[in-house]
């Protein structure tokens, strides 16, 4: 019961923050709500007993991605004066479509599918298993991801670098 109550609170918090992210006019505030929403998602991960991912979420999403986003917002600061609308012409249609899609998805999730759920505990050595899986069975995806990161690192530096005059 307590868990369920916590889940509902966290879920509402997360969804509310996410809504503010897409609705708020001020981009900086949007980004702050994004961080809050990331935090909520991290708590959801904890509720799923994936503590490692939760901490990784905080470390990477809040510590790195959100910081980068805020940084980028500050660097393109002229954009936030609010002279123009933050939304484009199709926002209404997009909203309508999103709502319908959301309702359809919720309907499917709630009524249409019987997921094969098993009642099992997360093994105590889940993180150790994750570690050996990353360098064992999933070593190729892991390596590909690291190459991707390297490429992104170099690419980002090259793109954002100011041309030497």
């Amino acid at each position, binding site marked *: 019961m307590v868990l369920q109550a916590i889940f509902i609170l966290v879920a509402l918090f997360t969804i509310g923050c996410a809504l503010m992210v897409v609705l708020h006019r001020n981009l900086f505030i949007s980004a702050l709500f994004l961080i809050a929403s990331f935090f909520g998602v991290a708590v959801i991960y904890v509720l799923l007993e994936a503590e490692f991912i939760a901490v990784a979420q905080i470390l990477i999403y809040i510590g790195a991605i959100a910081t980068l986003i805020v940084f980028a917002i500050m660097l393109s600061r002229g954009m936030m004066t609010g002279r123009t609308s933050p939304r*484009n012409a*199709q926002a209404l*249609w*997009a909203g309508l*479509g999103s709502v319908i*899609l959301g309702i*359809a998805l919720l309907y*499917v999730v709630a009524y249409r599918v019987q997921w094969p759920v098993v009642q099992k505990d997360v093994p105590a050595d889940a993180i150790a298993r994750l570690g050996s899986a990353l360098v064992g069975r999933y070593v190729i*995806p892991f390596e590909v991801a690291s190459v991707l990161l390297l490429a992104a690192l170099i690419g980002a530096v090259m793109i954002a670098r100011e041309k030497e005059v």
Partner: protein
Amino acid sequence: MDGLLFLIPALPFLAFVLIVLFTNQDQKVSAGLTIGATAVSWLLGWYFAFRAFFDPHGVAEEPIRLSIPWFPGGYSIFYTGFQVDVLTAVMLFMVPFLCFLIFVYSVGYMEGDPRFSRFFAYLALFATGMLGFILADNLLLAFIFWELMGVCSYLLIGFWSFRKPGETHIDHAQVKRARAASIKAFITTRVGDTIMLAGMVLLYAMTGSLRWSEILAPETLEKLADKIVSMPVFGVAPWATVLAILIFWGAIGKSAQFPLHVWLPDAMEGPTPVSALIHAATMVSAGVYLIIRTFPLFHVVAEGSNSAMWFVAFIGTFTALFAATIGIAQFDIKRVLAYSTISQLGYMFAALGIGAYIAAAFHLLMHAFFKALLFLGSGSVIHAMHHGHHVSHEHGHGHEELPIEFNPNDMRLMGGLLNKMPRTAWTFIAGGLSLSGFPLITAGFWSKDEILADAWHGGHMIVFWTLAIAAFVTAFYTGRQIFMVFFGQPRSEAAKHAHESPNSMTVPLVILAVFAIAAGWVGIPETFPGLGAVVRGWFQSLMGAQLEALHLEHETLPFNAAPLLISMTMAVGGLFVAWLIYGRKPLGYEDPLARPLGGLWQAWHNKYWVDELYQATVVAFAKWLAHFLYNFDDRWVIDPIVDGVGRYGRRFAGAVRRFIDEQIIDRIVNGTAWVSNVLGEFLRQIQTGQAQNYLLAILITVTVLIVLGIGVG
């Protein structure tokens, strides 16, 4: 040793990486890297190939494999890797060997080009693609390497698509042509590849696997043959047929079959070694290889209702004759060969279409040898013409007056080169004889005869006679080419000053000439009188092992003199007629056939106007569509509607002003305008260049699909 399988494609790739990253500055090291890596791949390849040759049944039943888990997909893990069975071994005998020879040849041919290193980097990358493709043990990996070849082809066709300052050997027009040709090649083959990708996705959806050993297993094929799909327009067909035809489209694009053949002749803008390697011997035959590889999928549906085989046979036969006739009326030495390649690939598809698996593989192999030889020979000729042109200019022979513009590829300006460059000439003639199927001694004769015999034996008379006529035409244009280039008198200063090419170019020619003649002897049928007893159909029994492993029946054809004699007559007759027209008397700058044949000649010379047709239809349609959508509201719909309605409304209002309130009319007019405006705006959304609009379309589509899904199921 099996673990080293991956090295065969990996070594050239390593060479590519090293050249691009490090040795780009040093031409010698770059060429050395590529050639060295290919040489090692060649040795490794032959090791595996000969293992298969010595134990064909064992290897066919239990291919040499190297497989690793690639990525987990749902409930299973997608394995990928390389394998060598008999079919791969046959290709593995040919591909790295040809690569090696042609790379050596390129050292001489490309000498002095400022992008020498880059050329070798691309070649190495291409070798990776081709070797990986033939070794791949599943369709997805094969497709990746297939696309890699496509990229290399694009890069190499457009190799001279820009000119560095101070480069003299290419002119502006050539640069433009190279650009257009590379884009054309890329886009045309993409059409086939996209259809093939669809086939691949469907295949995966149907079978849950893409490994050859699993999708070609008899039980899987049975399942595919039994399941029926009904489609709009095309009607009802088994899944196997649908998948086979979809995959065949990939081969049509890659092997330049009608209607996607248009890119290959233009691809001759690339350097000649590229034409030899990619656009004659290996990449274009990859399409044939793919169909040979997936042959059980084509073959599984019962004969009679098998429209996949019928389709393959039709395309192949039609292309064989179609391209051969165009070849008669070309003047560019390489274009003749290009059309000949298309035609010969058509032969192979025709063979596959009538079920002649072994004959197709045999012709594929032989064709690779003699066509590579012909291209390299033509490269040597062009090289010589280039130098001759240069020399004649330098020595003040000055401006000769030619009725046509100078072009080193133009056969009308050649002639009499036999004495100037004997090695090139004799090897070229050997290749030409092989191509035209000169009886008994040449490789081309044996492989072509095999196809014709199969067609005769199987009772496919239309196929047989079309191919026989194509054989005659082939012999004719080959003879025409040989007589125009090497015999008679030189018809330009350049031809007078031509001289033999360096050793690095002629040695590969000689080696290839040996293969172009002698390689065919391995496939002399066992039943052939006299000779057959010596060879005992070695190649046939080799491939037979592969067929048995695929659970397909394979029979030794009884000897039949009729197709043999027809084939011999066609070959010798074609050459003889060519001699009558082109060899007997000195030639001018106009083709002796052009006048008597008139319109037909024009049709051939202009390639049946297929290019123009595409320009007028496909390309124009695409442009028109773009224009249409852009202009839709502004010009054609809204303005007339608004104007018309407005005019009508005003007249109407003038007539009945007293009776009807002006407001209503105004509203109708405005409302109509508004409706058309909204409509126009909406239609304009289709092509706005803004990703968000497209995403909205995706959102709506997905939503509709999900809602429909809820409603239906």
